[in-house]
């Protein structure tokens, strides 16, 4: 052992004060501080984008929850609505909405003239741009239900046209009107004059939440209610099918199945299925449920079955994870006192895994609720113009739409009024998702708190 081969013990180590960190410590501290900073910066960026998202959704979507209405007193002229004068419902039904439109336009014109508003719009036809195309149907429905009203002057709250509505919501601007053939500056002047009189009024729009979709030119009448029912039925189907099948499959795979090549293969494939694009499930549903099994198109039952296929891997994976998390000692304890395998699983393991299973299921459901692509392929974008009460009676096999598909449809349409509806629909969808996730959290807390 020479001096050269061995590092000479350095000069007695310099005493370093504990209050003055040495270079190495400072370097380590700096690295830690940097890492923390990256973390904080990452989270801050995330929160920033989340706030931007929420602000823009709420900002663009709240308009959909308000709607402009016209309060007019319509004289229901018997000469036009019931030519025979016998109030026979069959005769009254023969009068189409074309018979009602002039009456409403007359009523609005009369309101304008009675109030002494000066306007160049003096003809009945000039009022067309102010009134929604749905108004005539609205009045007609009331008359068919109450034939006795014919001959009287009745107060109606009818939908204003989407341009008037847009003007009150700042969507339609005066400088744009020149290029708009649906409305003129004179109409806007008239609206300005009618607002203080209470004839034109913007109020809460319940019909958006409960109503049905409307055609391209009647954005003011479109609502998300019917597609909400479609989504509800689909979620019902998903819950009824996916929860028992998923939980039973995971219990079998996790607790009973022999561990061999086949179960390994199944396991890998379930994990892969969870990553398959949802549109592939749409094609599967189309070919199996509709083309092969001949189930009806656009039906919530089929939509629910397709979403079940899509949700199953999620539920199976989360259920298996929560079953795995149950300590094996519990299984041993149950087997040790002579419980059968099945008893040990159902009496002890499953209750302990329940919170995890529920959370996984609800998250799977939430994922299914927001899914659009597979629904497009099986035609769950039905245009349902009938209103909610009729559609509630309709069930699992009747054509319907779903919330995300409805939002997609609206976002596609040209009228900017639909843009607002799309954002409003997203607000409702998000409320549903947040509610479901909250339920998941609450259920989990409750079950976990038991012991």
């Amino acid at each position, binding site marked *: 052992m020479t001096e050269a081969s061995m590092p000479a013990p350095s000069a007695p180590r310099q005493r370093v004060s504990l209050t003055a960190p040495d270079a190495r410590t400072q370097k380590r501290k700096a690295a830690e501080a940097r890492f923390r900073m990256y973390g904080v910066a990452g989270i801050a960026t995330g929160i920033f984008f989340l706030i931007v998202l929420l602000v823009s959704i709420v900002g663009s979507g709240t308009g959909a929850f308000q709607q402009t209405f016209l309060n007019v007193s319509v004289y229901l002229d018997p000469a036009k609505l019931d030519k025979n004068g016998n109030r026979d419902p069959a005769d009254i039904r023969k009068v189409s909405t074309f018979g009602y439109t002039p009456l409403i336009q007359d009523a609005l014109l009369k309101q304008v003239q009675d109030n002494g508003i000066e306007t160049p719009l003096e003809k009945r036809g000039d009022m067309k741009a102010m009134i929604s195309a749905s108004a005539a149907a609205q009045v007609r429905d009331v008359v068919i239900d109450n034939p006795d009203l014919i001959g009287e002057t009745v107060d109606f709250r009818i939908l204003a046209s989407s341009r008037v509505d847009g003007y009150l919501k700042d969507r339609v601007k005066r400088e744009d009107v020149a290029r708009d053939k649906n409305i003129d500056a004179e109409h806007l002047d008239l609206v300005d004059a009618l607002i203080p009189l209470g004839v034109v009024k913007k109020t809460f729009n319940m019909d958006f939440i409960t109503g049905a979709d409307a055609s391209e030119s009647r954005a003011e009448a479109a609502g998300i209610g019917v597609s909400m029912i479609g989504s509800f039925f689909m979620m019902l189907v998903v819950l009824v099918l996916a929860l028992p099948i998923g939980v039973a499959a995971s219990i079998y795979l996790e607790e009973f199945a022999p*561990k061999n090549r086949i179960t390994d293969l199944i396991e890998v494939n379930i994990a892969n299925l969870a990553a398959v694009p949802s549109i592939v499930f749409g094609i599967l549903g189309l070919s199996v449920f509709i083309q092969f099994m001949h189930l009806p198109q656009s039906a919530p039952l089929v939509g629910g079955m397709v979403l079940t296929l899509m949700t199953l891997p999620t539920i199976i994976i989360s259920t298996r994870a929560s079953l795995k998390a149950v*300590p094996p*000692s519990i299984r041993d*304890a149950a087997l*040790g*006192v*002579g*419980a059968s395998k099945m008893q040990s699983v159902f009496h*002890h393991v499953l209750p302990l895994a329940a919170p995890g299973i529920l959370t996984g299921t609800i998250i799977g459901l939430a994922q299914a609720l927001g899914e659009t692509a597979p629904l497009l392929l099986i035609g769950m974008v039905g245009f349902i113009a009938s209103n909610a009460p009729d559609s509630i009676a309709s069930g699992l096999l009747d054509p319907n739409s779903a919330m995300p598909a409805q939002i997609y449809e609206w976002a596609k349409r040209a009228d900017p009024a639909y843009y607002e509806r799309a954002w409003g629909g997203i607000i409702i969808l998000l409320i549903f998702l947040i509610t479901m996730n909250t339920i998941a959290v609450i259920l989990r807390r409750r079950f976990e708190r038991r*012991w």
Partner: protein
Amino acid sequence: MNDMRILERDVDTNTIKIAARGVQVYYGDNHAIKDVDVDIQDKTVTAFIGPSGCGKSTFLRCLNRMNDTIDVCRVEGDIRIDAEDIYDKKVDPVQLRAKVGMVFQKPNPFPKSIYDNVAYGPRIHGLAQSKSDLDDIVESALRRAAIWDEVKDRLTAAGTGLSGGQQQRLCIARAVATEPEVLLMDEPCSALDPIATAQVEELIDELRQSYSVVIVTHSMQQAARVSQKTAFFHLGNLVEYGETGTIFTNPEDPRTESYITGRIG
């Protein structure tokens, strides 16, 4: 002093409860138990000692077929309880485990109430005709496990809320509630402090009145204190089996002697 106590101990009866002949256990390719023959007597405490990984726990788990739950585990040979082959195809391991109770290394009460923990076994085996019957079974099991006085006022409280020693005694109560004939204990005191250990050991001595008790332990003092018969396992072989006193004072095999004196293990 310890030795004195050991010498005083006699085996109470000579009836053979469990007879094992030529038992081989494989974990996949690993030969864990090699040709073990052993006779375990009724109303006796039999201790299995040996270094870690020697197969004593594996052998214990053969006695109530808990090894069945391990896929790669394969048991060969002949194990008879009351002259019945427990590995016979017609034997239902569930029924066997009701007859051969087990207490595990780590206290593992169910996350249920103390009452439900003890009542679970009698319930699934239909031992109680009525609610009051069940109450009696639970009470007597808890009394036999020497934990009744501590828990009688809070039977509806969670079993997992008890201390470690209490949990282990609760697990013993749970095991005796099903009226087993054999009680297997896999290092029941390894997670307990000395006071709780003393309580459990006292309990084991009392349980000997009614059951054949087989206990796996790492503590040679414990084996000396509680058992009448001792079996020494080494590398999967049963090296020596006999009266506890003889094993500890006058072992035949040099390996036993080295282990007991602390030279191997």
